[in-house]
């Protein structure tokens, strides 16, 4: 179900049709121009047919200067974006030596740990000197340092589970763990807007995969009832196990998961739950413990909790927290643990220090301040954007806010104009989002000050007027209270 105003749908479809028609025309003429340059690779199949990469060649490459911009500093609230130029109409881009200092609204820097921090950075540098940049080994061989063991215990304590296991990459955490938990004869029910890593892991596991409508506990119940009654395909034997996979905050929608209702449904039908808290751990909740704390769900009710260290902790890697038995099983079967290099020790130390700051164990209350900041910043920014008439998705308290653009031409217009005014935003189009629902995604950080946010709002409002994305009526400015009283 795709929800957008009708006239916007018509104009967006027309834009895509026009882009498609021009792309086809160009391909048609390119065939004649390249007729004489026929390459002689007889006998070999083409690496890719001309029509397969049509979308990349004729749509994506035209605006590729809006994606993949290199940066030349740490992704703090202000950072340096490298300028690029193109001599062949965006087919290739060359870096120049100029950089622009821009306001960073795109990095996942929820608590501000992405730049140098007074507690974390000295400790990370010390661990770099002591343990060096890489363990040069697999976890089971020689790659488990004291830091790894300490972080696993700390993560388990932070999240509220008995044990935890670490991995070097967040994407790999999902795609390598799910095949270890479930196989052929099992059933995975995943939310329709789940991240690509979960989709990849589910496909790689060999289990049957069913999808339920985004954030709809009623539809989840319907799917569960239908599948449990039907059993495995063809044989109709009962399923070996059923895992329901949901995310804490959906990164393209900014919405919180309806966790209490979904857990209730899963308990009723005895299905396991897997919660991916990549964007919510450390960013929401009274003490930063994620969606469970925010929505009042006991962590013991969720069977497997997954998260990443990239977003709120300023590091890289991921973790799984679950019961001691599950973690023990994973340590013996997961290929990401048995064959992949372990996390880099300075990165581990960064997470340890970041969690200590959040918990207040570093002896200050900076953690609580950061959490309060990000909550205030997100709510302020979202309400101001809505007042200006933008269509903003997502719930209150969520630091991710997508602004709907819809039309494919508005994507480069918004992105380039904002960059010209020194605000760096991330725009997302097909295939990460449905075709008609292109958006600009803003990630708020605790390190943004009120002035930064006001500057950003100003720029976005002006660019929004130029590009024409204020789809809702703006709220009129309030009349002064004094005037009101005087009339009475």
């Amino acid at each position, binding site marked *: 179900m795709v929800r957008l105003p*009708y006239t916007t749908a018509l104009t967006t*479809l027309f834009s895509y049709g026009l882009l498609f028609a021009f792309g086809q025309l160009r391909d048609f003429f390119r065939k004649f121009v390249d007729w004489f340059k026929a390459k002689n690779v007889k006998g070999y199949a083409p690496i890719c*047919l001309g029509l397969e*990469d*049509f979308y*990349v060649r004729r749509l994506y490459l035209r605006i590729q200067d809006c994606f993949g911009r290199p940066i030349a500093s740490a992704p703090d609230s202000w950072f340096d974006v490298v300028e690029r130029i193109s001599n062949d109409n965006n087919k290739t881009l060359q870096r120049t030596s100029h950089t622009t200092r821009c306001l960073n609204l795109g990095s996942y820097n929820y608590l501000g740990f992405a730049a140098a921090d007074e507690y974390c950075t000295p400790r990370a540098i010390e661990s770099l000197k002591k343990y060096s940049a890489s363990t040069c080994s697999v976890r089971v061989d020689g790659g488990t340092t004291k830091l790894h063991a300490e972080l696993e215990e700390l993560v388990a304590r932070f999240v509220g589970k008995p044990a935890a296991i670490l991995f070097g990459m967040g994407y790999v955490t999902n795609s390598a763990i799910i095949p270890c938990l479930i196989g052929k004869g099992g059933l995975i029910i995943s939310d329709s807007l789940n991240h690509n890593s979960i989709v990849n892991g589910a496909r790689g596991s060999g289990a049957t995969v069913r999808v339920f409508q985004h954030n709809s506990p009623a539809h989840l119940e319907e799917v569960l009832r239908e599948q449990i009654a039907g059993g495995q395909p063809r044989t109709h034997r009962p399923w070996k196990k059923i895992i329901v996979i949901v995310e804490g905050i959906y990164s393209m929608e900014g919405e919180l998961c309806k966790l209490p209702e979904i857990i209730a449904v899963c308990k009723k039908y005895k299905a396991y739950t897997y919660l991916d808290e990549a964007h919510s751990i450390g960013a929401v909740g009274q003490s930063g413990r994620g969606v469970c704390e925010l929505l009042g769900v006991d962590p013991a009710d969720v069977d497997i909790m997954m998260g990443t260290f990239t977003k709120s902790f300023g590091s890289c890697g991921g973790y799984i927290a679950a019961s001691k038995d599950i973690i023990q099983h994973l340590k013996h079967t997961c290929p990401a643990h048995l064959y992949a290099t372990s996390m880099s020790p300075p990165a581990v130390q960064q997470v340890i220090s970041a969690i200590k700051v959040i918990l207040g164990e570093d002896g200050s209350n900076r953690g609580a301040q950061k959490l309060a900041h990000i909550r205030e910043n997100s709510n302020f920014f979202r309400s101001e954007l809505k007042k200006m008439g933008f269509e903003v998705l997502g719930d209150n308290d969520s630091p991710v806010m997508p602004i709907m653009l819809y039309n494919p031409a508005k994507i480069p217009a918004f992105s380039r104009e904002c960059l010209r005014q020194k605000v760096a935003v991330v725009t997302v189009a097909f295939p990460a989002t*449905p075709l008609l629902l292109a958006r600009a995604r803003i990630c708020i950080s605790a390190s943004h000050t009120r002035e930064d946010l006001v500057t950003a709002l100003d720029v976005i409002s002006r660019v929004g007027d130029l590009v024409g994305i204020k789809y809702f009526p703006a709220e009129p400015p309030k009349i002064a209270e004094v005037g009101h009283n005087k009339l009475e």
Partner: protein
Amino acid sequence: MYPGVWTTYILILFFSWLLVLSVFGCTPGTAWTVVNLFHFAITYHFFHWKKGTPFADDQGMYNGLTWWEQMDNGKQLTRNRKFLIVVPVVLYLIALHTTDYQQPMLFLNTLAVSVLVVAKLPNMHKVRIFGINAEN
């Protein structure tokens, strides 16, 4: 799945008729015939000649299927397919009515509509006559 696709299709046909009328300055009937023939060429090429998908993510799974065969995951006689069979027939009727059933236009329009409707029938799913267009 997306709102407004059918409406956009009909609006494109109507506006291209207006465009042909203004560029060539011919009778409305000839303009409808021109629109019908261009519609035939374009929809035949894109629905029944080109195969595969414009994105490489699916690793060539659909490289043997034309776009008509891929529509709605191969399910026959869905609402979309019925609508797309009706559009060439309606265009045919409009073109014939406005040209008063005169000869060269009658033959060309009938040829266009018969090829298009036959290609869209459920019995022609994955059929390649004489092996034309059968290679990937």
